[in-house]
């Protein structure tokens, strides 16, 4: 007979509801949750690995002010189009400095498609202030200047050496060209 089912439903009617009224009560999320990305702008090096691995090409590297110019030479940071993101987490795995994480924030709504393209500023959980950036930039300039000096010195030395040992700097010259070619290739892939 059907009485067992009826008994069960009656029993449940006496119990408390399990539904949560969503905006008021959010379900507890685990630590491993893959929610909206969180960017630590202070350590991002702008390498673009995340943009390259993204299967949906939803990450774009865009310029952003409040990062660390010491580490991120071009000052480009990931901007994520959540309209296309499928939260697979490959970008997080790929990040060499673990600056990109996925947090527990999952509520994602906007009036139009542009609203859910999150700029680096919106996903950044840690960023530098204007003052810090200025200091870091100064620092970067200083280091760059030092490096230039050192490089010049090294070049001088090298030149001196080269003069002594013959031509050995050809390999050095080739490397940047190869890098440039690789960068072009990836930008094509991203588009």
């Amino acid at each position, binding site marked *: 007979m*059907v009485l067992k089912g*009826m008994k069960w*439903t*009656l029993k*449940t*009617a006496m*119990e408390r*509801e399990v*539904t949560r*009224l969503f905006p008021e009560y959010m379900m507890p999320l685990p630590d491993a949750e893959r929610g909206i990305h969180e960017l630590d702008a202070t350590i991002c090096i702008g390498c673009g690995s995340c943009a390259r691995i993204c299967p949906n090409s939803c990450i774009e590297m865009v310029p952003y002010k409040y990062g660390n110019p010491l580490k991120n030479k071009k000052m480009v940071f990931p901007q994520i189009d959540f309209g296309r993101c499928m939260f697979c987490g490959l970008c997080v795995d790929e990040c060499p400095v673990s600056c990109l994480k996925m947090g527990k924030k999952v509520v994602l709504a906007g009036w139009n498609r542009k609203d859910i393209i999150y700029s680096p500023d919106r996903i950044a959980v840690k960023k530098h202030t204007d003052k810090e950036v200025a200091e870091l930039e100064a620092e970067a300039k200083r280091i760059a200047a030092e490096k230039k000096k050192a490089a010049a010195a090294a070049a001088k030395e090298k030149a001196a050496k080269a003069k002594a040992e013959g031509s050995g700097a050809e390999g050095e010259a080739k490397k940047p060209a190869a890098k440039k070619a690789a960068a072009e290739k990836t930008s094509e892939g991203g588009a």
Partner: protein
Amino acid sequence: MELFAFVETIMNWAAQERALTALIIGLIGAAILSGVINVGAMAVVWLERKVLGDVQSRFGPNRTGSRWGILQLGADAIKLFTKEDIIPKGADKQVYVWAPIVASISTMLVAAAIPFGALRINGVDYPLVVANMDISAFYVEAVLSIMVVAAFMAGFSSYNKYSLLGAFRGMARMISYEVPMGVCVIGVALMAHSLNLVDIVESQVVWYAFAQPIGFVVFTIALITDLGRMPFDQSEAEEELVAGYVTEYGGIRWGLLYFQEYISMVLGSILLVLLFLGGWRGPSIPVITIFSPMIWFLMKVIIVLVFLVWLRASVMRFRIDQVTDLGWKWMLPLSLVNLAWAVLVGLYLA
């Protein structure tokens, strides 16, 4: 000539003073009752959602109008009234348009003859009924099945295969259960020695549910079938036929058909209470003695309604051939057994 004589009688009657009274009573009763049953049906829609929610560990309506969602129906009504009114191409327009109206008429006609409780004054119950006919039980049972005609009209005119099958299923179901239902009513009438619903209620010193247990069960099942509730809702089985006979209806037309279903659910529950559960009979409650029959009556009706909803949440659907089989091979013989029992009790033991 007969017709002429009839007209003459009516004219004669209309010349009397009682005519005016009857007309006024009829009009007021119709207006009040149509309001009451509509509000009642709205309450039932809300009740169903809430009970289903409870049974399934959900909340049910909980946003519109406080935690209890009491304004949900108002919101739904506004939506239905502002929806575009479209008649599908290929539909038989006249029949299509008339189906909801016929449904509405059928429920109103049932409501006319059904007592909606009673008031107790000086120990006497005065039933609240507009047309207190001698054969009201017979009349109600007859008019209740007009609803299925409306459903058939709706399904058949829609020019849609789901609707067509739904209409056929609805008709076959009604056909299979109308006879057992009628025989059960006869069993009750036998014991009460009357076909008047008021008399039937008043004769229930023992509820007929106890006096005729088989009849009670058969009648309940037949009633659920007639109302098209689970587990007998094959005509609108949404997993097979989408929405059955209302598939092509939209907006307010759908709303009317849907609403009539709930009204007939209320009326059906009332009928069950009147015939088998002692109607408004019950001990007087002090202080509000005058309303005590009303309270008993409403309580019973609500219990029946909740039972119907609860049943819907906890049983599976029969297949249509199993339904007709059940009707012809089990319900009909069982109802006859009940009739025999009623004859025995009514004739020799009483």
